[in-house]
């Protein structure tokens, strides 16, 4: 099977800023994203997802390495300081690489 390398950017963030994150994903040229509802804990404490303020999302973007890095850099600069948010990159293989 013929596959191509792409980068998967995963972001776990408080849900409040979802629309800003999605805007950034589009602006930096990714062609899609996937979101699932999440909860968890980290340096900003426990987030139980029991109410609006406590909801988290897990956002995945499959794209070229450079796009992923640009999004992550932008998010680090703008949101890491004040929001409960983390991000990481991993290498995956896709088919129909022109989609991503």
């Amino acid at each position: 099977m013929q596959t191509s390398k792409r980068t998967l950017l995963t972001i776990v963030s408080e849900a409040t800023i979802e629309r800003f994150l999605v805007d950034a994903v589009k602006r930096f040229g990714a062609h899609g994203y996937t979101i699932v509802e999440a909860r968890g804990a980290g340096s900003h404490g426990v987030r139980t997802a029991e109410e609006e303020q406590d909801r988290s999302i897990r956002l995945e973007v499959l794209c070229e390495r450079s796009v992923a890095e640009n999004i992550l850099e932008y998010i680090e600069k703008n949101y890491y300081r004040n929001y409960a948010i983390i991000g990481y990159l991993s290498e995956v293989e896709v088919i129909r690489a022109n989609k991503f």
Partner: protein
Amino acid sequence: MLDSLLEPAVIFFALGLMAGLLKSELRIPEAIYELLSIYLLLGIGIKGGLQLAKASFDTLILPLIGTLFLGIIIPIIAYLILRRIGRIMRPDAAAIAAHYGSVSAVTFAVVLSFLDRTGVKYESFMTLLLTMLEIPAIAVAILIVRTRVSKGPLKLVTIFRELFLGKSIYLMLGGLLVGFASGPQRIGPVGVLFVDLQKGFLALFLLEMGLLTSRRLGDLRKLGPFLIAFGIAMPLLSALLGTLVGRATGLSLGGAAVLATMSASASYIAAPAAMRVAVPEANPTLYLTASLGITFPFNIVLGIPTYYWLAQLIYGIGG
């Protein structure tokens, strides 16, 4: 006063609180929280709209102006106290001020229920006043942020979206419209579901609020003694202001008690959402713990009877 502890709603709240503190397995899915809060916000609006349909508007003007005045003055007072006495940092002070300026719809529903049961009358436009208190309060808080806190990537349009299109204001105003436009003749089963059954669902929601409060209590030590005291003193001060304004603008004793309670209540839906975007530097733990962990339970259990007693006192002095 002890009597009010036997109210189903209060017992439900205590059950939720205890379940959370004892780490019971009770778990209310977020979808249910969302359903109940949409239902309650609409229902509070509809109940108000139905009452408004039979209100005489000449008695509305003065209390309306008084309410707008409270909406401006309370967050400013709160901010000054937080900064001058509490030495709280600017972003946190501004965000907390927004919470104490704006209102808790559930606390409002509980005070109406308290007065209904006690048999005390209040004006038919109180729900309208509720929404009128919320809007200036958040606007003033944002103004404080813009002038006293570093601005960051803050866009006014974003803020106004938070203000008027936030879930709570939107649904309460929407409900007001439904109740007002439909009137008692047309409201039918919609009225049964949203108004007659309201206290039932309110009780269920308070079970959930108890759970949420219990989650916040764990953060009490992060607040420090000043903010804990503030969480009780500020509502008392706001209630006093509310009662005086109610008295001055010609509200009945019941109306003044309601206005006092709304003034005393602190937001945990509209304000947190707006502040998280407007003042990202502010620490949500502080304003959520103060509002949801201290002021909300205080108001539900002790505050409301106290404010009613305060209104009786002030109306007694004057009368």
